Structures are given as C-alpha cells and as structure tokens.
C-alpha cells in the first residue's frame, strides 16, 4: 500500500508540471503587452521597462519558466501589483477561510446528499423519492450566489437568525456553508440514488434477504458499502467545484478568502496573484483527487494495490 501511495505521488508530478507550465503561460498568452495591462495603458515607458526587467520578462522563455518554477517551489510568487505585498502572504492570510468553507460544505453536502440518496432509492418512485429528486434537481439548477442572496434575505434580514457578513464566529459560517454546499447536495443525492438502486438489484442483496438479515442492515451495511464507491469519486470531484464556487459565496458574504482574492486580481490584472492562486487551487485539487484515489482502493477490496 505504501508503495502504491509513493507511485501515485510520483505520477502527479507530470500533471503538476503541465499545470504549472500552463499557469506560467497565462501571462504570455495575454493579448497585448502584459506589463502595460498591469500598469495601465498610460504608464510611462520607464516604468514599463523597469517592471519588465523586474518580472524577468525580457529573458528567454525557458529561463523564465525555470525561474518561475524554482521560485514557486521556494514559495516565492512575487509581489502583488495592487497591494505591493508578497503574494504568498496575501494567499496565506486568506486560504484558511476558503478551506473552511470548502471542507464544511463538503461535509454538509456529503452527509445530507447520501442520506437523501438512500431514502430516495429505498422509496423508489414513491412520493418521497419524487420529492427528493425534484429538490435535488432544483438545488443543482439554482445558482449558488442567488441562493446565497435569498438566504440572506430570508434568514438574515427577515428572520434575523444568522449574520450575513464576514466570518467572525462559527455562526457566521452557517449560511455560507449551506449555500455553497446546496448544489452538491443535489448532485451527490442523485449519484447515491442511482448507485444504491444498482446495488440493490444485485444478487448478493438477494442472498442477504435469504439469510434473514434485517432491511436496515441490508441497506446501510450490505448495500451502502458497495454504493459508496462511485459516490466517493463524485465527492472528490465536487471538492474542486466547491473550491472554485467559494469565490461566489465569498463575494456575497464578504468573506476574505482566496476566491475573492482571485477575482479582484483578475479584475485589476494583478497577474502574479492570479497565477499563484490558480496554481495553488490546482495543486489542492490534484492532491484531493489523489487522496480519493487512495481511499477508493482502501474501500473496495477488489482493487489490488
């Protein structure tokens, strides 16, 4: 098993290299001169020259890439054009909030989603199933930022139950996490439902019935353990979606996470920040997928490592 983990860790290196190269190229794919974009079209030529030199943009491409990589590995992503702070500091200050949101939303979505999916599968084609599936479809179709606005309207402004801005206490996290995770609830519920239905049709479930096992044990043990395998993959993929989607939630709730950082950076053409953020999110995402992959092999004994 240890060997497998090492092998997988090694295998993500090519992926990371490609991603880092693409992120690096972002700066160079910008139409027009990136420095002019950053400083503004009316910047004096002297400033443009100085910035170009400082960012190393006058060097040949491969040298630039090498510098980019070696700096990145040391944690040096340059300085934010906007705030003049080291990029790594800006990110470090904000990443924890985003992670909290994403992890919280994942836990919420998985628990509720799996539960809904099981209930739907067991009561297939009856009222409970149809209702839950309509709710799931609704949650998938509602834009998260719209849901967030509605939630603030209802729970914060009308009912005064939860705070709506910032994250100064645990309660502040409730609405953001719920609205961020809502879409995933629907996706996970549908996935669980179809996985459970397929599993419940299998011969080994019939064997369990013939043994006199109770319905509850059959569903939550015999069936669920098999159905969770594909669900796990979806949860892993969704985490990436949640990382990205948190940008929207942070915007609505005024949370200082890296989602907002990224958006602001894109709007102000703060390329060093953009590159670093995209790289970091991609790295997180690749690692999460790795973890899911490994867990996959732990849960399903048929897969040999």
């Amino acid at each position, binding site marked *: 098993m240890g060997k497998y983990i090492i092998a997988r860790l090694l295998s993500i290196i090519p992926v990371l290299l490609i991603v880092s190269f693409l992120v690096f190229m972002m700066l160079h794919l910008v139409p027009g001169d990136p420095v002019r974009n950053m400083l503004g079209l009316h910047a004096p030529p002297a400033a443009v020259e100085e910035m170009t030199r400082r960012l190393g943009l006058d060097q040949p491409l491969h040298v630039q890439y090498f510098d980019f990589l070696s700096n990145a590995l040391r944690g040096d992503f340059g300085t934010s054009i906007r705030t003049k702070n080291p990029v790594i500091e800006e990110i470090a200050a904000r990443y924890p909030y985003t992670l909290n949101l994403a992890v919280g939303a994942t836990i919420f979505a998985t628990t509720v989603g799996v539960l809904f999916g099981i209930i739907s599968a067991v009561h297939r084609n009856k009222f409970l199933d149809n209702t839950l599936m309509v709710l799931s479809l609704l949650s998938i179709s509602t834009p998260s930022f719209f849901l967030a606005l509605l939630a603030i309207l209802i729970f914060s402004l009308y009912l005064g139950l939860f705070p709506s801005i910032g994250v100064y206490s645990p309660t502040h996290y409730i609405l953001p996490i719920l609205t961020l995770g809502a879409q995933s609830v629907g996706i996970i519920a549908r996935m669980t439902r179809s996985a459970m239905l397929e599993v419940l049709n*299998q*011969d*080994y479930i*019939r*064997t*369990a*019935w*013939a*043994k*006199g*096992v*109770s319905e509850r044990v059959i569903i939550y043990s*015999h069936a669920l*353990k*098999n159905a969770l395998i594909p669900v796990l993959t979806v949860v892993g993929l969704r985490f990436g979606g949640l990382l990205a989607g948190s940008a929207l939630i942070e915007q609505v709730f005024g949370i200082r996470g890296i989602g907002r950082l990224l958006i602001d950076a894109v709007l102000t053409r703060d390329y060093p920040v953009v590159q670093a953020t995209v790289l970091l999110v991609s790295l997180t995402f690749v690692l999460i997928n790795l973890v899911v992959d490994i867990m996959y092999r732990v*849960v*399903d*004994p*048929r897969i040999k490592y």
Partner: protein
Amino acid sequence: MSDVMLEVKNLKTYFNIEEGLVPAVDDVDFQLSARETLAIVGESGSGKSVTSLSILRLIKEPGKIVGGNIMYLGKDILKMKEKEIRSIRGNEISMIFQEPMTSLNPVFTVGRQISEVIMIHQKLKKQEALQKAVELIKLVGIPNPDKCVDNYPHQLSGGMKQRIMIAIALACNPKILIADEPTTALDVTIQSQILNLMKELKEKLGTAIILVTHDLGVVAQLSDNIMVMYAGKAVEYGPTLEIFKDPLHPYTEGLLNSIPKIDEELNRLKIIRGTVPSPFQLPKGCKFSTRCDYVMDICKEREPEYITLASGRKVRCWKVTGDEE
C-alpha cells in the same frame, strides 16, 4: 415418507410488467416431507425458479404472490409477519442460488458472510461465530479454512464460491434447503463435486431439499421425487425412478427422450417440436397443446385438471386422465 413439513397449495405468483401480466406461477401444489429431496424440473420460463423464490417470500416488484398458501409446519408463510419470516430465512429454511459469482457481497470477507447468519439466528458472539465459520468451510471441503475465512469473494473460484454459499445455507442446520439451479453456472467437473457434496451433507444433516433444475442428470442423482413444470403449471409429479421408467405427460416424455442414450445410435438429437410460448400468448386449453405429439381436440379447448392417480402420481393431461366428466 411421513411428516409433511412444507405444503404449497394453489400458489399464484404474477409479474406485472410494462407489456402485461405474466402468470409465472399459476396455481401450483406440492408437498415436502422430512429428509425428502424434491426436484422441480422444467425449461426456462416454466416458473420453477419463481416457485422456489416464493417459498421464502423473496419475490420483489414487479412480481407479487397473489394467491395460495405455503404451510410450513402448520403455519402459513404468506400470512406471517416480517419478523417471523426473517427468523425462518437462513435458519429453518435456507436457499442457494444459481449464480455463485454474483451471490456473495464483494466488500465483505467470506468469513464475515458466514458468521453473519450464525450471529443473527444463534446469538453467538463474533469470535465464536467466526470459529464456527471456519468449521463450516472445512465441512464443505475447502482446503485451508483458516486462510479462506479472511478471503474476499473475488479471490475464490466459482466452485469455491458455491461451496461457501452452501456453508452459509447450512450454517444454522436448516430443516429445508432450497437449491435454485446450484450447478448450472459451473463447469461440469465442478458440478459433480458440488452434487456429491450436497449428497453427503444431506445424508449427514438430514436436510430436506428442494432442487430446482432443468438438468435431468442432476435430478437422477439426487432426488426422491420430481415435479415437472411447464408454463407456470405443474404437469406431472411422482417418484424419480418411476417417472424415468414410465413418464406419463407428453412433455416429460419429450424431456426424457431428448437425453441421448449412450447405447443408442442417433443421427439427430430428438427434440420437442416448437418453443415455449410467450407468457402473453399462452394457448387456450392445455398450455402444452401446441407442441404435443398426442394433441387431441379437447386439449385445445380446455385445460386439463391436475389429477392424483391411484399410484400417488399426479398428472395434468387429457390423454392420461381422459375426459372425466
């Protein structure tokens, strides 16, 4: 044979599917006594599997048991509460299925799957149950039972998986074992191994067996009595030896004739002409009339009754029972 344990009367199990209503089991009667082995024989679609599944009420939507009684030791299984029948399943009446490859849960060890049934019905602790599981694995003839108990199903061959199924089924020493085509999915050599195992265990433990199969060779080896089914109905019943020597129903006759005999010269295999009718287009009158070599006018008009003859044999055929009005 005394002590009738199981008595099935007028069993009707229908399937309500998109294309229509399928009478998979249509008014079937039979009995099972202690230590008896009864074979239920028929082609695919005859209703034999559905009959066996109905006994333990393992029929799921869109199928439903719509009529009849299944009397087990005097109580009607079809009227029992969920808890009661659960205590019978795996305990007093067990079942093994046709597909050993898919009948075991892939994420649990074999030992856990055996010990589970023991823990449910015999209130043993986990360790003791696992101990018993090891003994059972040994009983069904698998080498290295201590290693095997921690194996997962995908690590075992088809034959071994079926042995595990048998171990699970016999773990609580049931009075009745229902075996639905237990050897059909296995290689021929493995088939005979499994059959011998079943014979051995039957003798050792005194279990009554209902053996569902289309293979008459299997029937000959194991069963005391045979019930022949066709298109959802029972068409003949009697002791194995007698039926083999002197089949009464034309269908039974056809089945026996289609087995090539080793001392006979044959250019072509004898077959029963025609095919099993679609359940939506069952012929009027006797269901076998479209394929019968002895078909008479009355066969096409009215369904024959299931008559018990003086010898104790039963048959559903106008040719045999005549038009007794």
